[in-house]
């Protein structure tokens, strides 16, 4: 399965809906999307990963890169994920301490910390 990407605006946040597999082949597409959003002035991003079937370290690297970019503009990058197999990868790599991970898009959009 390939990667699917779509974006929508909710208040002052931009929600990126990601579906499919984020791996060494597809991660560059996600990177392009995040770079494009930041270049266009969207600095508060919510990446919804509920429809992601697979995520590897290349995908993690892209998310970390996205976080660095938005932070350079005092922005934020929040994740939405309830899938145990995906959350496990964030735990193994210690990235649960780096990303705010929410259980729903509504919660992520409302978060202000």
């Amino acid at each position: 399965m390939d990667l699917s990407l779509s974006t929508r605006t909710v208040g002052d946040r931009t929600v990126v809906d990601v579906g499919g597999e984020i791996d060494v082949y597809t991660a560059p597409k996600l990177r392009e999307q995040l770079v494009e959003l930041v270049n266009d002035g969207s600095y508060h991003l919510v990446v919804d990963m509920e429809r992601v079937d697979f995520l590897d370290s290349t995908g993690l690297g892209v998310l970390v890169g996205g976080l660095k970019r938005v932070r350079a503009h005092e922005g934020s990058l929040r994740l939405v994920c309830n899938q145990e197999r995906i959350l496990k990868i964030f735990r193994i790599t210690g990235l649960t301490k780096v990303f705010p991970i929410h259980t729903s898009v509504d919660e992520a959009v409302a978060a202000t910390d």
Partner: protein
Amino acid sequence: MATVELRFSALPEHVRTARLVAAAVARRAGVDEAVLDEVRLAVGEACSRAVGLHRSNDVAAPITVMLIEDEKKFSIEVGDEVPGTPVGSVPGVQGADGEPDGAESAADEAEDEMGLAVISGLVDDVEVSSTETGGVIRMSWPTVPDPVLP
């Protein structure tokens, strides 16, 4: 001899194929259903790393994946043909081949390290070795006694 041996060109698009094949053979070998996600992820990480190494070192040879079914365990060996790959070396410092020490290579290595971190976090039995002919990541998982045959 390996139960199944897979060789593929060092291209990112083939890593998914390797994941699918590895998971299918692991399932047949009797690896617990709950662990198959880990097998898929670990073999993907190992293959992504090998693809990255071949590409950054201009190695034209394919990546080799051996899927080996034993009585009590299922093993995967992912081999690259990049000699003496430094494992756990200082990030951003390249080998003696005069590769420029740019930000990009540092980023590649950080990604590489994260891949190894994922593998060692997932797999209890893992061994990373490197010789003059290339590197190998060996991983194994226990199998249940009576696998359900398709």
